[in-house]
């Protein structure tokens, strides 16, 4: 119990600088579960299909999920601070349409990317302003803007498709940004990397460093853990939330540009349903929907697991609907595992 403290007698006990680590806690940590899952995915897939471990196949697989994964990085930060952006896929569509029209007007590839980023940023800023200025719940606001942005795209485009893009733009999406390079040494080579995956890798690294190593990152954790106490501690809560919505919009615009370049054409139904795939990546990555908990490493691993599971199953001609069942089951299983162990431990202790 508490003993009245005598001044000048403060060093009667020691407080450790770091928390003692227990092996079991480490083994049950989310990131470790994901690493195990990742290895399992590779092993199972490569046993089932001889085509799985082909570098070109893997490289192509990455481009199927990298655009979503880029958006997932922004979504992870939003969910971390107890917000969400469900309009991301609709922003992809709006940005992609803007790019399509700009391309028809003969704009350069660089300008097309700028158009995508700009439209994304505007949409994100609109979301952020509604959420922070009018104090509306972000889930409501972004369900609204999801309809709004997608609806705008449908009204303007109708059933028309935009499909004339400069070759330089299409090359960015359809060829490897880094080509396959042999080094001359057996088993040592630089694999082919599509631009979208490279962008994701670089962004993941930057996001990881910002979230886990900087003052702003710490402030985001504080907001997610207790927004009131964070505000009382001088954290600019609403300004940061606003910026995150802007960032999420911009990443969606960037993903829209990459996706448009890869597909070489766009219709108003582009990227339909992506928002839930993206939220799935973030949740599987261990970001708590209640806020305050999560890591970029977790999201990175979840993206790879989900991408490779999907790719592996597609290689074996498993239809999309079945893949979706599998991924749903996987998500539920993975988020239940820590809880099941907790229960088990409590049950053992109580016996």
């Amino acid at each position, binding site marked *: 119990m508490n003993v009245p403290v005598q001044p000048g007698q403060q060093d009667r006990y020691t407080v*450790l600088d770091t928390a003692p680590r227990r092996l079991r806690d480490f083994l049950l940590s989310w990131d470790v579960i994901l690493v195990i899952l990742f290895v399992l995915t590779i092993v199972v897939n490569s046993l089932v299909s001889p085509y799985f471990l082909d570098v070109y196949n893997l490289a192509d697989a990455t481009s199927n999920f990298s655009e979503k994964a880029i958006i997932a990085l922004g979504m992870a930060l939003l969910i971390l601070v107890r917000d969400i952006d469900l309009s991301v896929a609709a922003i992809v569509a709006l940005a992609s349409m803007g790019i399509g029209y700009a391309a028809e007007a003969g704009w350069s590839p660089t300008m097309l990317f700028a158009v995508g980023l700009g439209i994304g940023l505007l949409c994100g800023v609109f979301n952020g302003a509604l959420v922070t200025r009018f104090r509306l719940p972000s889930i409501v606001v972004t369900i609204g803007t999801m309809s709004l942005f997608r609806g705008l795209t449908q009204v303007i485009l109708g059933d028309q498709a935009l499909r004339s893009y400069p070759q330089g733009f299409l090359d960015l999406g359809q060829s490897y940004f880094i080509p396959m390079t042999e080094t001359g040494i057996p088993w040592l080579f630089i694999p082919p990397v599509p631009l979208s995956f490279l962008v994701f890798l670089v962004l993941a690294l930057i996001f990881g460093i910002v979230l886990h190593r*900087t*003052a702003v990152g710490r402030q985001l954790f*504080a907001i997610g853990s207790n927004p009131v*106490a964070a505000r009382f*501690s001088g954290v600019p809560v609403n300004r940061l939330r606003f910026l995150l919505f802007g960032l999420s919009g911009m990443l969606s615009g960037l993903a829209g540009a990459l996706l448009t370049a890869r597909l070489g054409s766009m219709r108003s139904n582009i990227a339909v349903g992506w928002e839930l795939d993206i939220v799935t990546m973030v949740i599987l990555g261990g970001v708590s929907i209640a806020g305050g908990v999560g890591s970029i490493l977790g999201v990175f691993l979840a993206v790879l697991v989900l991408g490779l599971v999907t790719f592996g199953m597609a290689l074996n001609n498993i239809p999309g609907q079945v893949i979706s069942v599998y991924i749903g089951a996987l998500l539920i299983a993975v988020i239940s595992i820590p809880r099941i162990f907790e229960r088990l431990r409590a049950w053992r202790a109580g016996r």
Partner: protein
Amino acid sequence: MSDPVLTLTAVSKSFPGVRALHDVSLSLQSGRVTALIGENGAGKSTIVKILTGIYRPDSGEIHVGGAARHFSSPRDAWAAGIAAIHQETVMFDELTVAENIFMGHMPVAATGGVDWSRMRARAADLLERIDAPIPPGLPLKRLSVAQKHLVEIARALSHEAQVVIMDEPTAALSANEIDDLFRIVEQLKAEGHAVVFISHKFDEIFRIADDFVCLRDGEKVGEGPVASVTEAELVRMMVGRPVDQVFPKRDVPIGDVVLSVEGLSNATEYADISFDLRKGEILGLYGLVGAGRTEAMQGLFGITPTTRGRVTLEGRPLAVASPADAIAAGISYVPEDRQDQGAILSLGIRENVTLASLGQYVRGLFLSRPLEIDETRHLGRRLAVKASSWEQRLAELSGGNQQKVVIAKWLATRPKVIVLDEPTKGIDIGSKAAVHEFIGELAGEGLAVVLISSELPEVMGLADRLIVMKEGRIVEEFQRGRWSAEAIVGAATGARRDAA
């Protein structure tokens, strides 16, 4: 006197580190209003919670109508005929008046469903009995606070309650509404109900109560008919002890004015707050709950907008639009609500301590963990925080240690002025003493301290000067040595000066 409706015999209740009630006995008579009086934290709410089945007493007995009772839930208390009307009404805004009255015991029709027409008719009867012209079918959210109180009274009557507890029922009412309420209290008396009335306002107690029970630090210190005491005597009973010896006051040289506040106001909660604060000075801010102390200090700190007023820090005018501005200028505010506003329970000690001063630990672009740990260790040791490691989550610490971490967070910002809002509320005795000692130490180092406290011994023990607030305004200022507990409480409650 006739047999009491309800008696409490030698009831005690403790929480970790706090003795909330000790050996309290009281009895309630049918047809009489008993006022429960005492300072904040004297144990009034604990009694209400025991009577309504929210807390179970550690020892002691409750008798209702002569029979011993054990309440294990609020339902049991309802069943025994005890109903409470709370300070802030706990009802269902989206439901109708009738549904609120009969929530939990709706009349059942032969079909097994709710008998809506009978429920509405009975609700109308009950409301008529207390002369409250409220349509039973109206949704509760359309009613005023006063009307909601009436609905609660009707709810109490629907349970055939013998004992009606009113916990500061007038706090949010206008003068006319209070008159209406008192008329109903008289009627309840006439019908033979026993009423428990809790209020900080002496005029109301003398107007409506027949008997009083006075509590202090969880013990009963007086009881009797209201007619036999004066306000001055009640105040003395509430305050009671020689306070000056409780906390040894340090002798600190008081320096120049650091902070000067002039005419600080906001739209509703406080007006015209002006004071000067000097280096090394501890300024006490006393008042009842709801006097506007917290609101005024949160305005100063940039949490809520102010409408008027000038703030000068070290001679320079200061515009504070957010807590970040206040922190940058050297003002710190340790909030009253430790769990929600002060501590981030799911983060570790280090992350809490450094949160308000993150810029100090940045090297290049990144936070430096060694620098964070150095600061945490330094402040943590100074405040004698007990923990297994500096990374331990705050949720795992005791309330007292959490509070020390929160104070450490503010000291890490190197403030010139620190506002402590009820810094020892709800923490154990040991930590309390440490916090008191520490407040003195801070002043000794030249910090200017504003101490908001509802505990008279605490402010009287620590403060050099004391400002009393009532209903959003400063009503009185006392210098150390030229005050008395009676005069301070008198100013805060608005008791007549001559009586105090």
